[in-house]
């Protein structure tokens, strides 16, 4: 583990469009940046056995997940020429259509942000101990598995 402070990526509930907009605005003072790329994970109304998902309830092994997010962040900075990077993931209930994951990478050049963003999102899916419980309209549930 490197000496940089480990950040808490988790936010209670959905990630609002206001929060995302403000995050973008905060970068206007960083004038070496020439390209941003943003990934927004949205809760999908999957239909399983005739029942529609109405929300996902997220839990996580928070200490381990924050360490893994930190490692992913460090590895991404080593691989790509990025100016900055931000990751936010929801905990608790996020309704269909709401945002549960927000990844934001910035660089002087566009090619770096396309490659870096895909790398970060795929690493999160594989390495972060986060668990989604799909809640159906009738309040029954099943545990989601990433495909």
């Amino acid at each position: 583990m490197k000496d940089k402070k480990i950040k808490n990526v988790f936010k209670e509930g959905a990630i609002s469009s206001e929060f995302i907009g403000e995050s973008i605005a905060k970068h206007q003072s960083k004038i070496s940046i020439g390209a941003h790329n943003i990934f927004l994970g949205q809760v999908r109304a999957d239909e399983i056995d005739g029942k529609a998902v109405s929300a996902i309830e997220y839990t996580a092994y928070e200490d381990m997940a924050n360490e893994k997010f930190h490692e992913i962040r460090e590895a991404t900075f080593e691989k790509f020429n990025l100016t900055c990077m931000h990751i936010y993931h929801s905990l608790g209930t996020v309704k269909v259509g709401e945002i549960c994951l927000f990844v934001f990478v910035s660089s002087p050049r566009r090619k770096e942000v396309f490659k870096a963003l895909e790398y970060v999102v795929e690493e999160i899916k594989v390495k972060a101990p986060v668990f989604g419980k799909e809640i159906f309209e009738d309040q029954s549930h099943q545990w989601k598995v990433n495909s």
Partner: protein
Amino acid sequence: MRLNIKYFGLIAELTSCSEEQLEFEGTKVEEVIELLNTKYPDLKSKDFQVAQNREIVSLKSPVTGGDIALLPPFSGG
């Protein structure tokens, strides 16, 4: 040694708790899992990884004490 066992997602649902203490006399991670399989027979049919002190370990790894977590398939994002 005393271990702190953590459960998440569908595993926590199965054990009806998220954390418990376990007195452990053995040496390897697989022996911890065997003890838990005896306590929770339904665990055997579940797919999970094991983390020791927040790092994924194999069943053959030595138990070093601290936190052992049972992690079902990840579904973040």
